[in-house]
């Protein structure tokens, strides 16, 4: 019995003093004090420097990019179809490689924008900024008006392939057409992977772009080698990526079919010499007639045409001229 008394006292103590746990839970233990030293403590008029959180490029630069794209398209169209000058086109290409390729590091490009537009159309939670819409639509609109002038002087991926074309072999038409179907397959795959739900979504055009690593001087080793292989092949087969793989090129070829003004060979003036067909590295002239969907507006045909040279000197109506719709030799 005597042993119970201390226990009883302890119990009494507990009961008398025990606070309900609910009281304690009201209080939040936070970080004790502002543990970093204050400006006053550091003294001597010290002011905490503001941490910079730079915003992305200001909207005005995005507008500049779109404007430059529009201007480049216009200038390329003018050079290709009215001035009919290859030298000017090369100059525009080099300028676009420098700006859109090296300076802007190849992003945002219309080829990749295809995926973003596809997603934005399908996914209600996804939207693209205005300038991406513009970058996607402008070359297509230009194709509707003037043919593939984007490929001619603006696209940096095309331009570097264009610049390495040395001696192009002629690819048989059937092979050309068969390979050309590949770009529709690629387009389909790109759109498919882009419109998948967000967790599975994959931007395959961005992932497998073989040339962008050359503009950024860095990238996956295997992809850089593929890019290099395309360029080496491009010395002997004109612009293989553009003709047979580019998914945006598939759209451009479809749109350029109905171009308002584009290349054609005027039947009543041409000499049937075939020099233009030999000069075209891209198989865009078949049976002495222009194939609009394949024409990259490079201007090599002008250089080889004797009538064109005579015209330039003599000022007569040229044999190779932009004409409205009444083009012959459509596929």
């Amino acid at each position, binding site marked *: 019995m005597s042993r119970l008394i201390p226990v009883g006292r302890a119990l009494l103590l507990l009961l008398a003093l025990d606070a309900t746990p609910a009281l304690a839970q009201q209080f939040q233990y936070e970080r004790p004090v502002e543990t970093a*030293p204050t400006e006053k403590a550091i003294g001597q008029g010290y002011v905490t420097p503001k941490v910079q959180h730079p915003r992305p490029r200001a909207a005005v630069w995005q507008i500049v990019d779109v404007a430059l794209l529009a201007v480049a398209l216009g200038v390329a169209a003018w050079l290709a179809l009215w001035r009919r000058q290859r030298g000017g086109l090369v100059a525009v290409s080099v300028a676009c490689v420098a700006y859109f390729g090296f300076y802007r590091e190849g992003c945002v490009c219309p080829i990749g924008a295809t995926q973003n537009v596809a997603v934005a159309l399908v996914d209600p939670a996804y939207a693209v900024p205005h300038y991406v819409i513009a970058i996607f639509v402008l070359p297509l609109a230009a194709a509707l008006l003037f043919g593939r002038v984007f490929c001619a002087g603006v696209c940096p991926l095309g331009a570097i392939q264009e610049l390495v074309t040395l001696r192009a072999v002629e690819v048989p038409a059937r092979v050309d057409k068969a390979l050309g179907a590949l770009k529709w397959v690629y387009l389909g795959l790109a759109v498919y992977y882009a419109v998948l739900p967000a967790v599975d979504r994959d931007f395959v055009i961005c992932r497998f772009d073989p040339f962008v690593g050359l503009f950024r001087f860095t990238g996956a080793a295997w992809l850089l080698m593929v890019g290099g292989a395309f360029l080496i092949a491009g010395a002997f087969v004109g612009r293989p990526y553009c003709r047979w793989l580019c998914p945006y090129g598939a759209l451009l070829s479809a749109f350029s079919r109905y171009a308002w003004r584009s290349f054609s060979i005027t039947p009543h003036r041409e000499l049937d010499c075939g020099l233009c067909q030999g000069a075209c590295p891209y198989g865009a002239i078949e049976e002495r007639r222009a194939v609009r969907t394949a024409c990259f507006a490079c201007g090599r045909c002008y250089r080889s045409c004797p009538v064109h040279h005579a015209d330039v000197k003599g000022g007569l109506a040229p044999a190779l001229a932009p004409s409205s719709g009444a083009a012959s030799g459509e596929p």
Partner: protein
Amino acid sequence: MSQEHTRREVLGHAARGAALAGLGGITGLLWMKANATYAWSIDPARCIDSKLGAVGVEVCERCSTECVIALSAVRAVNEFSRCGRCYVCPAYFKITSAVGPDGLPSEKVCPRDAIKREPIGWIDADDPANNFYEYTIDEKLCNGCGRCVLQCKEPAGLGSIVLEVRHNACLDCNRCAIAQACPENAFERLPPVTPRP
């Protein structure tokens, strides 16, 4: 012949018109929907270099190695208002290295020497340990390797340095290579103006 010509012309015009209308439709649809640019951001609560509770981990360098640009768009950023301004900063000095003659560790954490240390405020000329020091990260040198971030994390430091995507350098790729490689899934697309808590 002229009739064929005309029919072809009409068909051509019609096709062109339809294509233009299609383009215009897509443009209109997307234009109404277009929103502000979203950009990639890192959540410091998920990033393993700054995540609380992950003590004793190895530094995760993927932010510096995976970016598609040569100098990664991710940099370490010191939130000055939360920095302790310590005499011996564990993110600046390698605190396990041998102590030099001045009483400070002899080695530094940053492999690219991107952190600058300067005394600030009221200076005690007799005792350098009695002063506050400002630690500034030079963004031209920092490549986002995360070593300083890991050392600054609590409890060793106060956690004022975090890895941040610098939006003026980031290309905002559709498919961010670092986001794919991040083991903690710390990357997400956010409106860039929202300040991180």
